[in-house]
């Protein structure tokens, strides 16, 4: 496997498109009901927890992009190969591919659970999984630039739907945010930790970097994207705190959808049915991207043809997704993924960055000792 990738120019895209892609992979199904997990830890200061988590994201993104910048044009698979060699590096790469597949399963299954609870209780799971995967397969066939384009569309949809959170503000009780910073730092930190699954997703830059046309601008786009999604999540959290009362927020499984229950137009009385359905469009690019990353991994590691692997991976995800039957299973999956997301998006980038630094200083030492000899 070559460490450096040189994609053909027609596969590359401008750095500013990363804003849409990274935001889209951050905002997924986590936003449906993340509030109560944070609120349980840090109470009415939950929005501070989200803010702290956002700062960690910014830091982690800085580490990731700085690590990538030390190479000419490579992805995480290449970095693994370079630092840890073929076997250990390959093992880590496979671990990552499994992680991304699990994320895909979590996204699909959590979304379907929400649709079944809200709109179609008797809708067969396998059919819904098949529909989402076939859409993702069909779109993904166009390659990375189609995924970029889809991300732009879902970026627009995310903001249209987010603008609906103006309505709950009419029922806001602002005193619920007071007194400020009542939670202890440790409570705020443990709330921030629970943002894991909701906020991660920016690590996709590890795999997109070779395809960025103007690489020096990568850092700026990444930070802008994370800032936008952080502001969005902080707003949703703060609005939930002022809209719901203490124990009511802890009871709601999908607080974000619940808040849309009050949006009412003369021609549509229950807008959340529409927004929940439309939300699928924002999930498709994420699924496309994660399957693309995994199939790309097979291509890079074993030299398999990428388009064939996409079918294999989709089949694997399909089978795994329908194995989860009830809410208990899905909650367990979400618990697992929020733990592993923290490791893969915050701890792991730090580890990689330090490894790269160590390796380059070792190389320098070696070169120096050679000169000395």
């Amino acid at each position, binding site marked *: 496997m070559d460490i450096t990738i040189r994609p053909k120019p027609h596969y590359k895209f401008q750095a500013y498109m990363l804003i849409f892609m990274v935001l889209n992979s951050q905002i997924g199904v986590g936003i449906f009901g993340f509030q109560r997990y944070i609120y349980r830890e840090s109470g009415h200061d939950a929005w501070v927890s989200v803010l702290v988590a956002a700062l960690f994201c910014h830091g982690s993104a800085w580490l990731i992009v700085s690590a990538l910048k030390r190479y000419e044009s490579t992805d995480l698979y290449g970095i693994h190969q370079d630092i840890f060699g073929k076997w250990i590096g390959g093992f880590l790469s496979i671990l990552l591919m499994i992680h991304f597949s699990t994320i895909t399963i979590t996204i699909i299954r959590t979304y379907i659970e929400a649709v079944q*609870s*809200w*709109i*179609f209780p*008797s*809708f*067969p799971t396998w*059919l819904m999984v098949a*529909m989402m995967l076939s859409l993702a397969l*069909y779109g993904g066939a166009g390659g990375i630039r189609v995924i970029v384009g889809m991300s732009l569309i879902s970026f627009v949809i995310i903001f249209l739907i987010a603008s609906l959170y103006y309505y709950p503000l009419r*029922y806001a*009780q602002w*005193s*619920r945010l*007071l*007194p400020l910073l*009542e939670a202890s730092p440790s409570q705020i930190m443990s709330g921030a930790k629970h943002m894991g699954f909701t906020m991660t997703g920016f690590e996709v830059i590890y795999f997109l970097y070779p395809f960025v046309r103007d690489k020096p601008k990568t850092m700026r786009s990444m930070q802008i994207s994370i800032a936008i999604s952080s502001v969005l999540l902080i707003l949703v959290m703060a609005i939930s705190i002022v*809209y*719901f*009362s*203490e*124990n*009511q927020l802890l*009871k709601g499984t999908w607080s974000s959808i*619940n808040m849309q*229950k*009050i949006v*009412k137009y003369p021609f549509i*009385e*229950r807008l959340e049915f529409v927004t929940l359905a439309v939300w699928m469009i924002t999930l498709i690019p994420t699924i496309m991207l994660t399957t693309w990353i995994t199939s790309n991994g097979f291509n890079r590691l074993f030299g398999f043809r990428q388009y064939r692997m996409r079918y294999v991976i989709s089949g694997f995800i399909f089978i795994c997704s329908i194995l989860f039957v009830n809410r208990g299973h899905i909650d367990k999956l979400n618990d697992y993924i929020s733990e592993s997301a923290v490791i893969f998006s915050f701890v792991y980038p730090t580890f990689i960055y330090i490894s790269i630094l160590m390796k380059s200083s070792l190389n320098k030492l070696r070169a120096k000792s050679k000169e000395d000899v």
Partner: protein
Amino acid sequence: MNRTSRCAALLVCCVSVLTGCVRTTVLERLSLGVAVGYDRLPDNKMEVTTVTLASVPEAKEKRQVVSVEALTSKGARMAMNQQMARLLVSGQIRVILYNDKLAKEGVIDIADTLSRDPSHGDMIYLVVSDMSTRDLLSYNYSEYPNVGLYLYGMIDQNVRNEWVPSCTVHEFRRDYYSIGKQPVLPIVARQNGKVLIKSLALFKGGKMVGEATREQGAYLKLLLQERQPSQFEVAMPLEGMRKFIKKGDSVHNKVNAVISNLGSSSSLKLVSSSPLTFKVKIKMKAELQEITENYDFTAKEAIGNLQAELSKNMSAKLMEALNHFQKLDADVVGFGEVYRSSIRHSGLSPEVWQKKFPNARFDAQVEVNLIRTGTIE
């Protein structure tokens, strides 16, 4: 056949085949419930009454009312379907009524059931009825084609413009699950073959503990910072006004004035935590609409005097309302929330607050700013 047209053909096939997979709900095959009433029966049973839109177009009545006995509200729906020619659905329910006996036992289970089922909106109004809801809903009203829709319109109108605080499922559950505020719902009644909103039901821990009058409701609504009641009627003793009332006119010992509310703001502040004292202040811009005596507006200080008298008497009324809520131990204004949000690390829980609230003292003040006296003086 090229690639694009093959894809298009596949898509058309998928769309036409897959759309049949979901259970359909054809409007013509449904009965839409618009109002549901719950009555308490012995043995933990409930009697549930549903008013639906006429499901048979040829029927003379524009409504159909069904009543069943059941243990749960979903069980009631199953039992009701035994009487229906079309499937009864709950997506159009606008009003839920509780009999006051049931309200005194607690109604949060039913409110939670509403929220658990996504087919109900969160904007359904919850109402307490001072008589059996079955009787209220199945009575043959000569003036309303559908009492369910009429009730909804009546409550909605009063919530938007008048003295009734908003009473949606969301707000009921929000207040029930909050630490420092209790819910409040309107009470409907039937008098002379007509329905009306009689008073307000005050809750404590999800159980109805007492009532509040229309006037108390209006002051409560000012404090809740919702849409504000549009008008206030104030009765003032003659003493302070005698100077400006023209002589020779018949003089009663009370002067009644009506002011319209052009905009008000209220503030609740915790003054001290021991003894627990709150400062309640309402500022209202008002326009005089009616006064029962021949008041001399041309005299110097006349308007200032009227303003001061209005403020004084309204403050007394506000104080009366607050004391009434306190006597019933129903913190419907949300002083607990003020306490929680003003004191750091208060660790307030509903139980702690219930012990503190009866000892709270209030300093209530209404400040009327009489902007104009209508088009004449």
